[in-house]
């Protein structure tokens, strides 16, 4: 039980035994507890996926290394990708959405609290099922996008890929039900006065994002079911030796897979939009622009999947069409970057750890975005696709975009969730170590790609410059590992003896900072009148209210 104490900081009931607390979590339908469970789940899987990454970088540190054999390496790189995308990025973002959205719109809970609990647990068990494959004869070993016909029983004998299908189907059910829940919550549970035009941008992005989830996941679920039929019941969808189609899998996967990239970046865009405003102490620049460009990205997301397949030989006409649509994505994304810069311009910038991650994101994501444009230029794509240049690109987008967003959110909302501040000094150490390690690891991989190193190789021969670049890249990975340990220590220490946060430590603008930290079970005793996009600002500055 969480109780409100006099000074607004809350304390856990000291008399409740551990077993009772755990039982409470297991049976909870409170959006805040479920949100935190999502975040803990993401953290656990982040530790596992990160360890896998370190194993890979250890194997690749020197030429002709035999630390891991091909069998182990292929399982580990597959699991690293699947884990980070489906069981780290998505649960972390869902956790933040589920925790923050009801508070931001002045609601007491999600629209369907029990469905919310169901979504979490089915996602969690999906992850457990996936990892059970290690004990059941071998993990999936055909990469996270699991191309046919390598994913068929003839080429992948172990049960790993069956577990991949089942695990992702379960997690997919969780994602779809969460998306339904978020859409209904946002559309029906807003406090009076909060029109769609006054929604905080994080909520806007989450809304658009949930529609993306609803539209994209069915394609993956269909592909996974077909593959299971192939593997378990001898169907022939992707079995090329029996006339099945290898490209069908690629189309079905990327019709899901490309929107998926936006599914894990849009909520992060929402986070940055809040963080930039609060730590510049200034309204967002181009609210309508950002919201509209998000809708544009979501729609375009379904018309660009073939840019993952430029090299499969579809002919110049089809390829040209998808080149154009992929390049168009660059425009709304570029608009966003400039909007955030313009938000900072003229403000009073406070470089907290949260803001540091947001600023670093601007630069890292620009690098990742530009290398992304390179892949929409077909002739350049034909050179660089499936090399380490792609590995560098997607980590700039996933880490520099999504993961930095999650870190920014963690430092921003931790005081609300726990009632205590995360330590800023330790946080800055963490920030600098992580950013340096990240750039060391992945910036160099651009050059490896340019030197012809293909991705997903378990070893490489002595080719000039390969060893030194790979070695430095591995060193960067270890620096990120150390930084992550520092973050864990910071969370642990701050939970015990961090500074008491109070309701509104950042002088923020949105409703979640109106209530106690952490909020009581009902979230709000009362909600101030919403008459603009910054309800809390209006409440705190009654003489200087926003004009809608």
């Amino acid at each position, binding site marked *: 039980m969480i109780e409100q104490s006099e000074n607004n900081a809350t304390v856990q009931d000291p008399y409740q035994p551990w077993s009772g607390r755990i039982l409470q979590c297991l049976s909870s339908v409170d959006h805040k507890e479920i949100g935190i469970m999502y975040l803990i789940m993401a953290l656990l899987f982040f530790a596992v996926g990160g360890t896998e990454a370190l194993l890979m970088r250890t194997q690749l540190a020197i030429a*002709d290394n*035999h630390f891991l054999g*091909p069998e182990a390496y*292929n399982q580990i790189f597959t699991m690293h990708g699947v884990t980070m995308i489906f069981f780290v990025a998505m649960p972390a973002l869902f956790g933040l959405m589920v925790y923050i959205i009801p508070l931001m719109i002045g609601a007491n809970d999600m629209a369907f609290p029990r469905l919310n609990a169901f979504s979490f647990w089915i996602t969690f068990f999906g992850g457990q099922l996936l990892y059970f494959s290690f004990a059941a004869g071998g993990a999936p070993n055909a990469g996270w996008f699991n*191309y*046919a016909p*390598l994913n068929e029983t003839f*080429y992948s004998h172990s049960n790993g890929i069956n577990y991949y299908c089942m695990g992702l189907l379960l997690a997919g059910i969780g994602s779809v039900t969460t998306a339904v829940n978020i859409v209904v919550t946002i559309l029906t549970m807003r406090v009076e006065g909060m029109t769609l035009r006054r929604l905080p941008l994080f909520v806007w992005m989450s809304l658009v994002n949930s529609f993306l989830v609803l539209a994209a996941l069915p394609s993956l679920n269909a592909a996974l079911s077909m593959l299971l039929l192939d593997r378990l019941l001898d169907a022939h969808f992707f079995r*090329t*030796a029996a006339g099945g189609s*290898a*490209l069908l899998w690629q189309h079905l996967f990327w019709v899901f897979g490309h929107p998926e990239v936006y599914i894990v970046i849009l909520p992060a865009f929402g986070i940055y939009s809040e963080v930039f405003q609060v730590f*510049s102490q*200034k309204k967002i*620049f*181009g609210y309508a*622009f950002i919201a509209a460009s998000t809708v544009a990205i979501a729609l375009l997301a379904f018309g660009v999947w073939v840019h993952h*397949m430029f*090299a*499969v*030989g579809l002919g*110049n006409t089809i*390829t*040209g069409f998808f080149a154009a649509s992929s390049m168009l994505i*660059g425009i709304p994304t*570029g*608009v966003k970057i*400039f909007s955030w810069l*313009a938000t*900072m*311009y*003229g*403000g*009073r*910038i*406070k*470089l907290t750890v949260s803001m540091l991650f947001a*600023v670093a994101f601007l*630069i890292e994501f*620009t690098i990742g975005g*530009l290398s992304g*444009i390179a892949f929409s*230029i077909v*002739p*350049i794509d*034909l*050179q660089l*696709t*499936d090399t380490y240049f792609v590995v560098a690109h997607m980590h700039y987008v996933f880490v520099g975009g999504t993961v930095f967003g999650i870190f920014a959110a963690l430092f921003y909302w931790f005081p609300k969730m726990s009632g205590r501040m995360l330590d800023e000094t330790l946080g800055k150490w963490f920030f600098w170590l992580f950013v340096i390690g990240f750039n060391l690891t992945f910036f160099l991989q651009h050059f490896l790609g340019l030197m*012809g190193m*293909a991705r*997903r*190789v*378990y*070893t490489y*021969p*002595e*080719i*000039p*410059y390969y060893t030194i670049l790979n070695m430095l890249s591995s060193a960067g990975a270890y620096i990120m590992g150390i930084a992550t340990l520092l973050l864990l220590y910071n969370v642990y220490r701050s939970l015990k003896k961090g500074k008491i946060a109070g309701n509104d430590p950042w002088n923020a603008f949105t409703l979640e900072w109106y209530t106690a930290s952490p909020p009581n079970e009902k979230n709000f005793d009362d909600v101030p009148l919403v008459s603009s996009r910054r309800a809390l600002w209006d409440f705190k500055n009654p003489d200087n209210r926003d004009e809608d």
Partner: protein
Amino acid sequence: MNWLLFAKLKNISPNIPYQNILHSSSRQAEEINHIELYFCIAAGTMLLLVVGITIYILLRFRESKAGDKRIIPGKIWELPMLIIPTVLVAVFFYFSITTMAHINPDADSRTPDVVITAHQWWWQATYPGSIEAANEIHLPAGKPLLLKLVTADVVHDWWVPQFGNKMDIIPLQDNYLWLTIKEPGEYYGTCSEFCGLQHANMRIKVIAETQAGFDTWLHKNGQAAPPNKNKTIGEELFMAKTCGDCHRINGTAAKGTTGPDLTHIGSRATLLAGMSINDKDNLKRWLKSPQHVKPGAYMPDFLLSDSSINDLADYLQSLK
């Protein structure tokens, strides 16, 4: 045991020289590298712009330095925000389309100059007249070639970085690639679509020669192994141990097509798709324990005695 074998293998990688996709060794690579250069300039400028603006804002508007007044940039800013990316995108779309048409025209009904078949984890090259070669692919420099790419099993990808574009190789689909090599020389590449256990050791070696040199090689490579009245022990073993079920030696009873053609294996510089140097020691290691040398390869361990291995290696080395 495992570790010891690997340790021995450490020094057998062939020497692969420094490669860099910005060295254009084919006409196609030249065209691609032109766009790449323009793109680097445009992207570098954009990156510098964003970094520059960010640093400027951070220096000028820190809480400690900024006054109390907030500055709201005017709506006028929205226009360049939209126009700059749009123009850049339009320019590069134009470059993309024109270059694609240049480097990748329709094959029409032209007969391919070579058919390359990708296998888990080696390359087969078939020249007109059913002349077979494996792993080391000879091509004439200085003229436009049409490569036909097919796969025997899963999806693979043909990529020699200095030749520019890559091409996936998809089951049940014929893919074509145009290639005009500029200079004779040796070029290295690798399969770049993940294709299973030994994806890392599915390397490509292209030997580009003058037309005359290529013709001589093709003629020689097309010849069957010389008939041998007094069969060596190695040859007897080769036939008796069913090697010929998977491997072909032109002119003998060995007619398998699952594994690489061995008619002229003695004349190749590398073994196992570019994994090691072709010498007797490495050949013997491979025959002794294929699954330790290249785990996952389809070559079974025949549990041969040391003297049989020696004889077989001698025989294979003699196939020049």
